[in-house]
């Protein structure tokens, strides 16, 4: 793999170019970055092809002068940190781990193993973003596609409840709207783009058709579309109820049934508002129904760089995608019972290992209050509200910038990362492996936790 070229241009700087590196800032996981790395200053000075968010992600990454480990706010060695973390986890009656969507699959696999070993609880940020889509999937399935297939074939592209221009800036240009594809020779000209949302956003200008839905009425619109697709009658006051006219619905139905290859992208505007998994389920069902007339797929627009990897790892190891509990020595799944925000809000857990996530800034007040009372272990690349309240805090290297490993794009396509420069900080995987080794040592022989 010849992508790493070292050179010393005029100003005698030690510069490295990394081609085809991957940005892990959002679920687009663009793997066409060309990074210019200043090896003397340990930072990325140019990120060709990155969007504004990606550039910020790469440029802001500098090696801070911070201790690798803090225990109770005091500097400690990595070994001491791992010893203490392992002891906390082993001593706890109901230990949990949470986060995992911004680290590599290799790290995620170790984290699940630790929870399996200590009969703990594992949950990811999926439970607060597209968890409802995961539940809808369990109910009705999904017709889906990789993003390249959408690029090659989709002539009708519908975004529902999201603002990709701000959250996933290259979604339009790299995958679904403007690029030319095998059967879309003229790019955007060959596609019809529809945006459905409760308000106009910076994504609206990309749309050929904008459909404004009254807040909280997405499910009603989706269900009306399903009825119309199937030739059923719908209520006369649909416009009054939902803000969408009958003419608009008929037009959409016509377009959906008559396109060559249609796609519905669902955003968090559907999963985190009234209806939740019912909304996602309605999208999946609508897309499935449309296959009686044409080819149609649906796809959640996932946020974090490797949240899709977390879903995959937790699923292949346990059979369930998030909110998994090992208390009985085997995996059990129950959102609401084993999802972290609920476990914390009910005050059930007595130790938490938070990996690459900041629940102390975005969970409910009761959940945060409980988190502040229990020993917390954190692994993060930067200071967060959660690292500040943690008992053991590991400063770790940044995946994709300082580490290799595997991430999954929002369409389940796995990609290997190319690190840009070394970090003095350990990787999540190294810290987790150290903790796992210690936990297993503490629980050898008769101390091993078995099933009951």
């Amino acid at each position, binding site marked *: 793999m010849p992508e790493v070229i070292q050179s010393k241009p005029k100003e005698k700087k030690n510069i490295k170019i990394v081609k085809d590196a991957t940005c892990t800032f959002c679920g687009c996981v663009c*793997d066409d970055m060309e990074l210019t790395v200043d090896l003397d200053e340990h930072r990325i000075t140019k990120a060709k092809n990155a969007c504004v968010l990606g550039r910020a992600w790469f440029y802001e990454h500098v090696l801070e002068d911070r201790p690798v480990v803090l225990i109770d706010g005091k500097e400690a060695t990595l070994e001491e940190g791992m010893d203490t973390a392992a002891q906390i986890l082993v001593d706890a009656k109901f230990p949990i781990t949470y986060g995992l969507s911004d680290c590599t699959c290799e790290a995620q696999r170790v984290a699940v193993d630790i929870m399996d070993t200590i009969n703990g609880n594992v949950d990811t940020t999926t439970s607060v973003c597209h968890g409802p889509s995961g539940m809808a999937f369990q109910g009705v399935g999904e017709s889906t596609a*990789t993003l390249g297939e959408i690029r090659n074939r989709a002539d009708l592209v519908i975004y529902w409840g999201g603002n990709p221009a701000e959250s996933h800036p290259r979604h339009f240009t790299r995958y679904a709207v403007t690029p030319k594809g095998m059967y879309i020779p003229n790019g955007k000209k060959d596609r019809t783009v529809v945006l459905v949302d409760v308000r106009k956003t910076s994504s609206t200008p990309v749309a050929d058709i904008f459909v404004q839905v009254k807040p909280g009425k997405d499910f009603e619109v989706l269900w009306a579309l399903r009825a119309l697709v199937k030739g059923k009658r719908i209520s006369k006051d649909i416009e009054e109820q939902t803000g969408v006219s009958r003419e608009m619905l008929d037009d959409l139905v016509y377009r959906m049934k008559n396109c060559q290859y249609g796609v519905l992208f669902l955003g968090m505007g559907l999963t985190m508002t009234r209806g939740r998994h019912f909304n996602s389920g309605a999208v999946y069902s609508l897309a499935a129904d449309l296959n009686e007339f044409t080819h149609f797929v649906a796809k959640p627009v996932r946020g974090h760089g490797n949240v899709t990897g977390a879903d995959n790892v937790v699923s292949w*190891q346990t059979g369930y995608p998030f909110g998994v509990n090992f208390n009985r020595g085997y995996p059990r*799944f129950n959102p609401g019972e084993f999802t972290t925000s609920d476990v914390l809000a009910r005050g059930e857990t007595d130790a938490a290992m938070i990996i690459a996530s900041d629940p102390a800034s975005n969970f409910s007040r009761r959940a945060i209050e409980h988190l502040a009372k229990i020993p917390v272990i954190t692994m993060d690349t930067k200071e967060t509200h959660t690292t500040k309240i943690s008992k053991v805090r590991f400063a770790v290297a940044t995946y994709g910038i300082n580490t290799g490993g595997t991430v999954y794009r929002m369409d389940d396509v796995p990609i290997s990362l190319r690190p840009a420069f070394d970090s003095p900080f350990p990787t999540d995987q190294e810290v987790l492996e150290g903790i796992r080794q210690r936990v297993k040592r503490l629980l050898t022989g008769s101390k091993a936790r078995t099933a009951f």
Partner: protein
Amino acid sequence: MPSELKIVNGRVYDPANHINGDVQDICVRDGKIVDSVSKSVTKIDAHGMVVMPGAIDIHCHIAGPKVNLARKLMPEDHRLDVHPKTAVTRSGTGGIVPSTFATGYRYATMGYTTAMEAAVPPITARHVLEELDDTPVIDKGFYVLLGNNAFLYKLLKEGRKNEFKEAIAWWVNSVHAYTVKLVNTGSDELWKGRKNANITDVNESIDHYDITPVHVMESFIEAAHELGLPHPPHIHCNNLGHSGNISTTLDTMKAAQGRRVHMAHIQFHSFGGELNKNPVSGAREIIDYINDHENITADVGQVMFGKATAMTADAPLAWMLRNVKFDKWVNADTECESGCGIIPFSYQESIYTHTLQWAMGLELFLMSKDPWRVLLSTDHPNGGSFMNYPKLIKLLMDSAYRKEALKHLNQKAVDKTVLLELDREYTLNEIAIITRAGPARALGLMNKGHLGVGADADITVYTEEDDKEKMFNAPRYVIKDGITVINDHEFATDHKGKILHSKPGYNEEIAAEIEPFFEDYYSVRFSNYAISDDYLHDHEEIPTHPKS
């Protein structure tokens, strides 16, 4: 110190070495079978027991994106069948699509030490390797789906046979596959590009490519022959599940023109009768052809009553089943490479077609003249879980049991088969062939499926029982790479198996031909596509035998 082991006093079934139930000792050193070991060696007394090589599943679906989608799809199935951890093994969930750990352990608890994942779109192969690394005990490899590959079609359209062969080799190398897999050849383009249409005739043109499925299959068989892949193209024929598909299956086998080919799950391709009418059994026609053609190997794809999951790269098939069952349904298109469909399913005794399929599978087994070439599978989980293998073995070994079972099935379907006339009972030696020696030979695994000197020390020891289901359900000992993983029915240790893959030689200039196609039509960069060796962990390259 070398690790040694000796299994003494057991009745050994090792068909590849013509050992048929003789009492013999088996010596093991450092993971291999050897002639002799030191006197002080650890011994397993296998008196009253049957010793066989570890079993090999030549066709199953156990890892990767479609399997994981199916796992996510069925929490209701997992919660009924939990897989608790032990002091030495990880926990998981079972059901029709178990978690990775449960999959490895459960294969081991039936004496299986190798299994091949049968359908992997290349762009997702990284995922498959990650899952296989979390699938314990067994050795494993996978077949890469190339039969609907847009770039390869382009080469065939342009008549560039040599580049076609080189590109196949590039793909097998780039993703660390074992061999190539073709599924419902030609159908993807129609499915994705023509509003869910399907190929109905292997001699029809694949849309704008101006090539036919038969031509594609012939070309793969020829290229694999020249590359000398250890296992020939593994083909899932067109028209799966459609009445009258035997003509398609026969056309496909003829396309091999005497070259090696593996026909996957032939039961599903042995339907007689007329299209859109109830099927009848076409097992006789199919098995006669296979019996007469030594270039063909096949696995049966037996259906077993109870839960199953249609999980296939044949998306139109899953859609057809969805419109019968209206259950939750998954479709997943993979750019330029594949389709996929998943639907939970169950085979029921009272249903005509289900009974017919069950009986057709058994007809194929019982009318097969060469156990080395007609191998045991349920196309897990399509025909039922691999956990059904012991019951299937009993059905083959015990004609009274089989005839009793027939009484409880749909009699209209039973009447359409000759199963009542078939009294054949498989012997232990034949079982050892269809589950061990045969798959090893078909796969070109010289060190597996037998217990001769130099073979991998993958060994199963069963307590001999009259009830063969009971016997094959729970080996007393399972030895993997010379390590006693299951000792007296209990897991004694965890073990990681290895990845089996092949590396056909090719001219590296082909990469420059493929790269521009990636720029135009793929969503990942060409340089990020090939998978580094880091993902292989423990692995073994199985040699190819290229024809000069």
